């Protein structure tokens, strides 16, 4: 399977994501420059975390006008898999690929900590490797992660099981304290109606190896790989198997910002 990690000016989790996919999950991975309009025939596009365009105007608001986003919209409407992590989630919301919006965290603080999230729906391409109600320990790092949607939309999201991850405590309980950023219905991750675009605030790439404290994030990446391999009829292509660099290779310098 081939992953593409998009690089915007201000992305700062692009390398972590690249490392997790290429070196840990052992999948072919390429960087996709925001000014390009070639998705390099990837099977899944990942919008990484960071502060694209300095979070000016609103988080993710400027990135959605990048040339690559027009291609990603086409890719998504054709059923292509798109994963948005943190700022990537915010970009997907601003681009209208996922419903709703982000507000500033309820306590007005930048939150950088490990949180627990619960798998609410394990029937998706992004959560199938997990069990229903399984609790994952994955870090968050954001200022605007307070998910908001009007009441009708929230009801629809619940009904259609589009809420894939919810903030919870270590025992899977939906307590007020566990919902650190104040998201409505404890929403930490959301999928579109078609089931091919998912956004989440926690960073699975920062929890993909035991050595960094948790490898629970692998559940999300493994789900995508399992889904794709099943869809591709058992076609398994693995990259990076022969060469496993400790440090990810640098992407080519593709152009100016």
């Amino acid at each position, binding site marked *: 399977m081939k992953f593409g990690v998009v690089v915007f000016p201000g992305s700062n989790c692009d390398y972590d994501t690249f490392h997790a996919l290429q070196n840990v999950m052992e999948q072919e991975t390429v960087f996709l420059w925001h000014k390009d309009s070639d998705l390099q025939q990837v099977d899944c596009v990942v919008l990484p975390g960071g502060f694209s365009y300095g979070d000016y*105007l*609103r988080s993710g*608001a400027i990135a959605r006008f990048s040339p690559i986003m027009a291609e990603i919209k086409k890719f998504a409407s054709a059923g292509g898999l798109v994963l948005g992590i943190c700022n990537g989630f915010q970009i997907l919301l*601003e681009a209208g690929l996922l419903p*709703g*919006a982000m*507000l*500033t*965290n*309820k*306590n*007005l603080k930048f939150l950088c900590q490990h949180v627990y999230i619960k798998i609410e729906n394990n029937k998706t391409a992004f959560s199938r490797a997990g069990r229903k109600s399984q609790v994952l320990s994955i870090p968050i790092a954001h200022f605007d992660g*307070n998910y*908001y*949607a*009007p009441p009708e939309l929230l009801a629809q999201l619940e009904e259609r099981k589009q809420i894939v991850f919810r903030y919870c405590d270590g025992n899977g309980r939906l307590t007020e304290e566990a919902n650190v950023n*104040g998201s409505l219905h404890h929403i930490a991750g959301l999928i579109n109606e078609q089931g091919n675009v998912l956004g989440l605030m926690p960073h699975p790439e920062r929890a993909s190896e035991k050595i960094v404290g948790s490898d629970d994030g692998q559940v999300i990446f493994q789900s995508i790989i399992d889904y794709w391999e099943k869809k591709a009829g058992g076609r398994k292509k693995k990259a990076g198997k022969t060469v496993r660099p400790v440090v990810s290779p640098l992407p080519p310098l593709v152009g100016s910002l």
Partner: protein
Amino acid sequence: MKVRILVSLKPSVLDPQGQAVKNALHTLGYQTVKDVRQGKVFEIELDNTVRQTVDKLIPEIADKVLANPIIEKFTWEIIEG
């Protein structure tokens, strides 16, 4: 010509920044302050050729870029020209 656009959160959306400012004002003794809503101001200078279409242009720009219609609303006025 110049226009000023005010973008703020919809009344139905909680504004934690406005709340924090309100609380600070209360701490300072301004108990008459009942509520605070915080927003953004944009001042946009326009080519004079848009005079005829400004009524259409500004809401378009505001809806598409300056405000997120899910959580924000906007008002605008001509301040120059």
